[in-house]
């Protein structure tokens, strides 16, 4: 068998295998003795390297494997769909704002202020490390209290929570007051 054909067989076999193939297996398939095969595969591998092909043949113990050449990694990576995370939604921003201004707060308070369930947003903010559990409220069920983190301060480039721009206190306190009053009524 001419060398070109043996090279072809090695290429085809290594390509289809995907995985590493032992020298013994390659000898068996090509029906060529080990020293000859090794010299052919070494030559083939060298020519891949010399010509800076996109593919290379690497030795893995007593096996050989086909792989992409490392220098093309940045291009290869582009075929994988990037995982994209969209900017924070309005709902999540609202939850973050409530926590930032009214911390420490419970889920229930956030929900009362916003008028809608906010669990997803709270989870997302926890995941992003912008908020954290700061303790538990001394009330029935001992609900978790949330507050902002140092990461929050870094992200919004402020030194401390007191650096948050003042908002019309009356507005937000009115919300809290009316909502807490409403809460008491339902307990009665």
């Amino acid at each position, binding site marked *: 068998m001419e060398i070109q054909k043996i090279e072809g067989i090695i290429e085809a076999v290594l390509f*289809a295998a995907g995985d590493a193939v032992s020298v013994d297996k390659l000898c068996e398939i090509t029906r060529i003795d080990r020293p000859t095969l090794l010299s052919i595969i070494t030559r083939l591998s060298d020519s891949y390297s010399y010509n800076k092909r996109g593919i290379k043949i690497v030795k893995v113990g007593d096996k050989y494997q086909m792989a992409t050449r490392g220098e093309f990694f940045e291009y290869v*990576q582009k075929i*994988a769909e*990037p995982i994209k*995370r969209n900017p924070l939604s309005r709902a999540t921003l609202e939850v973050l*704002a409530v926590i930032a201004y009214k911390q420490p707060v419970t889920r229930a308070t956030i929900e009362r202020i916003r*008028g809608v369930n906010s669990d997803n947003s709270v989870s997302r903010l926890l995941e992003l490390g912008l908020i954290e559990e700061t303790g538990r409220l001394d009330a029935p069920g001992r609900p978790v209290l949330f507050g902002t983190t140092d990461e929050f301060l870094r992200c*919004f480039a402020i030194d401390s929570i007191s650096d948050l721009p003042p908002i019309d206190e009356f507005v937000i306190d009115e919300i809290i007051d009316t909502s807490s009053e409403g809460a008491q009524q339902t307990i*009665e």
Partner: protein
Amino acid sequence: MKQISFKLQIFEGPLDLLLHLINKNKVSIYDIPISEITEQYIDYIAEMKHFDIEVSSEFLVLAAHLLYIKSKMLLPKYGDAPEDEDDPRTELTQRLVEYKKFKKAAQFFCEREFAGSRTFYKMREYIEPVLIDESLSNITIGHLVSAIYDISERIKYRRPVNAERFKGIVGREVVSVFSKLKNVLKKLKTLKKINFIDIFRNVKTKTEAVASFLAVLELIKMNAVKVSQNNGETQLKYIKKRKGGSGIFGNTKD
């Protein structure tokens, strides 16, 4: 009978059978001798039934259509319309011509069916995807402030729902702990000592019972009653306040 040669053949559908009959009779697809072909077609169906081969409805539909064409061709023609236009076979011919193309194309695909089978492909390598995190891009303190104002703006339009509206739907009465507390206290003031159980006399609902119980707890907390147990009976005793009066209710909001 010649039909015997049929029974060995399975047809893909009524059009397939019809094409076979046309070929067998060596007639043109564009000038089908409807009477003969219809007769053979119906014979074939009868033959199928005879050999217990399931005759699908499509075969019967085409049989009916063939009979319809046959009867139409027997009718005398009126006027001088060109023959082609009212030839009742035209539509059937078109269908047969079209079907025949695909039948031939199927043969083409049949020949190449495994043409690609001598080639091997490989699996995709695992490639770590790039994470594009835009969660916090372009977010400023301003967004937080405007979010707060959005909420307060929305609250203005969020009117509390009138509890009256739910009456009859939810059917939950509101019993004030405070009113129960006043009742118990009034009783205690006059009787000085009552049985715990007596508090629940005349109680009609669960809510009322809970409110009554909470009222007792509240009174204990206020130091207005003293609880004692003897012979399995729990008794409440009234504690006289030195100052008395409205001061008693000072802590109820806690």
